């Protein structure tokens, strides 16, 4: 979850998010390379008192400043495409979760089991927070998922466009009315993972968070079986 004065990404809790963080660091290295070159040339140009009024063309210079950016783009693009295809890979998910965005809460459905499990997830109001709960992040009902299990999440909306996002899992997908968006993720370790609606959807857009609870499969099974018809 986000911590005070945090500048970077949240700690990755899924393999995809780890890859995204590593790619971000790689792209930052390339950015530092380009910025060093550009800053140096800028300072040299500003401080240079020599002027060549007869300079008309330079084929070698043009070749260099065409090839160099192409090479830079190649080094950025190839890892990016790799992660893009990794994200879209479907790994035969064990559990399918359906998420519906409403104004202003999320509702979830688990339809893989003998009985259809549906519930709504509202933000815990600040006045009702317990001492171990986080303001604007905790919800009354959490999305319980077994960890180390491939999960498919089908996201849609009942009214306006919302967005289901959990940064530490590297997941974000728009909840669009009349459309199903699919995301797939796997959680590496048990714990609580928080997210917030990421598409402006009205007055309480900031007050419809997401809480994912990753637990052991045995506890998940007990949780499922605890739902009475």
């Amino acid at each position: 979850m986000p911590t005070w004065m945090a500048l970077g990404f949240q700690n990755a809790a899924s393999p995809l998010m780890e890859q995204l963080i590593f790619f971000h660091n790689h792209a930052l290295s390339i950015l530092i390379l380009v910025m060093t070159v550009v800053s140096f040339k800028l300072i040299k140009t500003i401080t240079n008192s020599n002027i060549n009024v007869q300079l008309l063309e330079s084929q070698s210079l043009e070749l260099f400043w065409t090839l160099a950016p192409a090479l830079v783009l190649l080094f950025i693009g190839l890892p990016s495409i790799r992660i893009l295809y990794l994200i879209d890979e479907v790994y035969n998910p064990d559990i399918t979760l359906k998420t519906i965005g409403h104004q202003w809460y999320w509702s979830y459905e688990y339809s893989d089991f003998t009985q259809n499990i549906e519930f709504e997830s509202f933000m815990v109001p600040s006045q009702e927070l317990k001492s171990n709960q986080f303001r604007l992040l905790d919800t009354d009902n959490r999305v319980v998922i077994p960890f180390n299990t491939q999960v498919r999440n089908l996201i849609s909306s009942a009214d306006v466009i919302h967005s289901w996002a959990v940064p530490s899992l590297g997941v974000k997908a728009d909840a669009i009315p009349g459309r199903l968006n699919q995301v797939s993720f796997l959680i590496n370790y048990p714990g609580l993972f928080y997210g917030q609606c990421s598409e402006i959807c009205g007055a309480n857009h900031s007050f419809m968070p997401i809480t994912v609870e990753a637990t052991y499969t045995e506890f998940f099974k007990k949780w499922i079986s605890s739902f009475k018809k």
Partner: protein
Amino acid sequence: MVWLKVRTEFVGGPSDTKGLHTNFTMSRPVMRGFISTQFKKDSLIVTGLATIAVIAHRVISVDPAKQRYADFYKTYDPKEHFESMRQKGLLSCSVKKNPNILFNYLVNADEPLTSCSIHTRTSF
């Protein structure tokens, strides 16, 4: 490169400070291909600077980040982590068993989930 040579001499000998006379002589600057040579020199310098900057970023930030993740999973115990969260009451759907037992993997299927319930809002 223009070399400026400065030579100061005393006209009336070393003791004569009033007759100070300074000669400035300059070597002939090479203007042909000047920008090109400057560019090549600057390119070498900037290549070195950029290499140092990228290597520094990799050594200081990128590689330690990957190592931190690798080290975390080497020593990570999910059972201990899960049990500590459960004992603190952070998980909504887990049964609190005997706190002296670190982790009872064999969950009793008949034991009810006392702390798990779906909350239904009755007021807004």
